[in-house]
C-alpha cells in the first residue's frame, strides 16, 4: 500500500469524524441559546465552542462580530475554514476519491452521496428553525459512513489506518470538550443550577447525557462525568476507549507490516495509564494539565504514525 493511500484513509475518516463532532458542538451552542437563565452566558458558550473546536483564532481572524449566526455559519458552512462541516465533508471526499480503489463501493457511496446531498441542500437557506434537522443529517451521514466502513472494509492495513484516524480525532475532540469545561468538574464545585446546566452541556456534546443516567443511575456528579468521559471503557467516546481502539489498530499494523512500533508504544503507554489511574487522583493532580498533555500526546501519536508509515 502506498504511503499516500494510508494517509488518505487516515484523513478521510478523521475528517468525517470531525464533521460529526462539529455538528454536535454546534447543537450544544444552539441549545444553550434556547435555555433561559443562562443570561449573557450563551455568548460565552459560543466562544467556548470555538475553543473546543480548536478554531477560535481562525474565527477571530475573520474580524466578524461574534453573533450566534456568524459563528454557526463559520462552523458549518465556511469554505475557507478547513474544519467547517462543509469543508470536512469536502476534504473527506477528496481523500476518498484519490484512493477510490482502497474503499468499498458502500463506503464511497456513503461519502459521495453525502457530498452530493450537501451541495443540493443549500444549507445557507436553512434557517435556525431547521438547524437541528441539518445537524441530525450530518450525524446520520457520519454514522452511515462509519457503518459502511465497519461493515464492508477488509480488515487489512487500510481499515486500521481509517480506524486510527477516526479514533485519534474522537479522542482529541473529547479532550477538548473536557478542557473547555474542566473548571466545573473540579472537586468542591457546588451543584448550583448553573453548574448542573454546564454538566449537562458536557454530556450532550458527546451525546452521553442519556447513557450517563443508564450507567450511573444517579444525578449528574462531576466526578462521575469526568470518570465517564476519561476512564470508562464502556463509553465509546471516552479517552480510554479511543486509546484502546488506536492501540488495537496499531497492534494489527505492527503484525501486518512489522512497522509502527513507535506509535504502538505511545498508545500502549497511554492506555496503561488510563487503565490504572483513579479519577480522584487524576482530579487531585490537575485535570487541566492532564488534558493539555493528552492533546499534545495525541498529536505526537498522529505524527509518529505518519512518520513510520511514510504518509508524505
Amino acid at each position, binding site marked *: *500500500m502506498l*504511503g*499516500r493511500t494510508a494517509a488518505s484513509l487516515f484523513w478521510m475518516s478523521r475528517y468525517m469524524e470531525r464533521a460529526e463532532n462539529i455538528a454536535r458542538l454546534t447543537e450544544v451552542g444552539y441549545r444553550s441559546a434556547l435555555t433561559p437563565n443562562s443570561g449573557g452566558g450563551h455568548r460565552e458558550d459560543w466562544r467556548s465552542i470555538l475553543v473546543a473546536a480548536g478554531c477560535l483564532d481562525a474565527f477571530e481572524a475573520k474580524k466578524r462580530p461574534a453573533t450566534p449566526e456568524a459563528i454557526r455559519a463559520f462552523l458549518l458552512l465556511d469554505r475557507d475554514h478547513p474544519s467547517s462541516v462543509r469543508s470536512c465533508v469536502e476534504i473527506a471526499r477528496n481523500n476518498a476519491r484519490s484512493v*477510490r480503489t482502497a474503499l468499498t463501493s458502500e463506503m464511497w457511496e456513503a461519502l459521495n452521496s453525502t457530498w452530493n446531498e450537501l451541495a443540493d441542500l443549500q444549507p445557507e437557506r436553512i434557517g435556525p428553525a431547521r438547524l437541528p434537522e441539518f445537524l441530525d443529517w450530518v450525524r446520520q451521514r457520519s454514522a452511515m459512513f462509519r457503518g459502511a466502513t465497519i461493515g464492508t472494509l477488509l480488515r487489512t492495513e487500510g481499515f486500521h489506518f481509517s480506524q486510527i484516524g477516526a479514533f485519534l480525532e474522537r479522542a482529541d475532540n473529547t479532550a477538548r470538550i473536557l478542557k473547555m469545561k474542566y473548571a466545573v468538574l473540579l472537586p468542591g464545585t457546588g451543584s448550583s443550577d448553573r453548574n448542573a446546566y454546564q454538566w449537562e452541556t458536557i454530556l450532550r456534546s458527546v451525546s452521553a447525557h442519556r447513557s450517563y443516567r443508564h450507567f450511573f443511575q444517579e444525578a449528574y456528579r462531576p466526578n462521575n462525568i469526568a470518570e465517564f468521559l476519561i476512564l470508562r471503557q464502556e463509553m465509546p467516546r471516552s479517552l480510554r476507549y479511543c486509546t484502546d481502539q488506536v492501540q488495537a489498530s496499531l497492534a494489527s499494523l505492527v503484525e501486518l507490516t512489522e512497522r509502527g512500533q513507535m506509535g504502538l508504544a505511545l498508545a500502549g503507554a497511554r492506555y496503561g495509564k488510563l487503565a490504572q489511574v483513579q479519577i480522584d487522583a487524576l482530579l487531585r493532580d490537575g485535570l487541566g494539565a492532564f488534558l493539555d498533555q493528552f492533546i499534545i500526546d495525541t498529536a505526537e501519536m498522529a505524527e509518529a504514525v505518519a512518520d513510520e508509515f511514510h504518509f508524505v
Partner: protein
Amino acid sequence: MLKKQAYVAGGSPEAYDEMLQADGTPRPQYAELTRWLEGQTRDGFRHKQQEADAIFRRSGITFAVYGDAAASERLIPFDLIPRILAASEWRFLQRGIEQRVRALNTFLYDIYHRQEIVRAGRIPAEMVTGNSAFLPEMMGFDPPRNVYAHIIGTDIVRTGAGGFFVLEDNLRTPSGVSYMLENREAMMRLFPELFAAHRVAQIEQYPELLRQTLESVAPAQCDGDPTIAVLTPGMFNSAYFEHAFLADQMGVELVMGSDLIVEDGALFMRTIRGREQVHVLYRRIDDDFIDPLNFRADSLLGVPGLFDLYRAGKVTLVNAPGTGIADDKAIYAYVPEIVEFYTGEKPILNNVPTFRCAVDDECTHVLDNLQDLVVKEVHGSGGYGMLIGPHASKMQRREFASRIQANPSNYIAQPTLSLSTCPSFESNGIGPRHVDLRPFVLVGDQIRITPGGLTRVALKKGSLVVNSSQGGGTKDTWVLED
C-alpha cells in the same frame, strides 16, 4: 409499444444504417434485437434508463469537462440500445487494425533509428524531424520488444455504403476502455434476457490482458515478476476514474508523480513498508510532463530522472515517449503509405480522405470549400479546436480561414462524413443517431484486440460530433460470435 415502423433508418439519406437495410428489413445481426425492441415500452425503457444512471452514478464513473467548474463531474450519457457487429465485420476490422498497428509500431522504430522511410523518399524529412511530436531524445533507443505503442484506441467510422475508415489512430494515451467495460456490466444487469438470446463475444478479460501485455514488456533487467503501476496526473484529470478503474481491475497501485522516486538507478514507489521497485509504468500523462529534468521543467506531475532510467532500460514506460509522432494528424495522411512500405501489403482499412493545409494546392482547396469540410488542428483532440464547416456560421468560417492562413501546417481538413446511424433511445421512442467506434488494441508479446470496443454516439438529433466533451454518449458494442 415501440413500433418497428416508428424507426426510420438513417439520419440522412446517404448515411448507412447499422440496423436496417435499404428495404427496411433488419440486417441479420439485428434480427433478434429488432424483435425484442418491438416488445419494449417507452415507460419500461425510461425506467431502465434511470436504473442505468443509478448504476453509473454509484460506481462513480464520471468524467470532468474542462472549463465547466459547476459540473466538474458528470456522467457520460449511456444509450440502452446496443450496437451490434456481425462476426464477419469484426474479422475484417480485426485484420485491418492489426495490420495498421503493426505498421505504425514499425514506423516508430524506423524513424527513431535509420529513418529508411525518409531515405526512400516516401515521407518528407521535415514532416518527421520538424514535427513537434517527434522526440529526438528517443533516437537510437530500443524499447522492450521494439514496441512503442502498446495501448491503442483506433477510431473507426463507417460511411456511405458501409465502408469502414480509420479516423484517428490514438497512439498516446487513449481513454474510454473503462466505459466499454462498465457499459457491458450495466447491460448485463439491465437486460440479461438479451445476452441469453445472443452469442456476444466477451470483453471482461481486458484488464487481465492489459496486465499480461504490460508484464510482457518488462525491462530485460527485471528477472523476477515485474511490478506494474498506473501513473495518473491526479483526481482532477478528466479520465481519473478510468485510471483508478484500470489499476483496481489489474490489482496494481495507482500512483501520482509524488509517490515515485528515482534512487540508486531504479524507480521506486513510496509504500507504508518503505520503497518498492516499479518495473513497468503505465503512464496516463503526456510526454511533456513525465520528467521535469528532461522535458517541461515546471511539471509537477512526473518524476525527475524517469526518462534517463527508461533510456537505461531500468523501467518500461507505456506507451513509449514519442509515439505522438505516429498519430499526428499531419502524419495521418501518410499512414496508407506507411502500411504499404512496412508490410508490403495494401492497407485493409482506408483513411478518410485528408487534405493537408501544409501543401499549397490542398490548402487552397480547403479554403475554397470550408462549408463542406471538417477542419482539425494537427495536434488537437477531444473535439476541441475544430471547425465543422456545414454547421458553422459564415462569421465562424471566415474567422477560421484566417487562422488557417496564419499557420497552414497546423491544420488538416476532411470531408464531412456521413457517419453511420444506430437506433438510440429518445424521448419519442427510438431514432437514428450517428456513431463511431473505438476498438482497443494491446501490443506486447502479441497483438490483442478486444472484440467490439467503445461506440460513441451523437445523441443530439442530426449531430455528427460524438465526443463526450461535446454532448456525445456511449453504447455497449457487441460482436456476435458465429
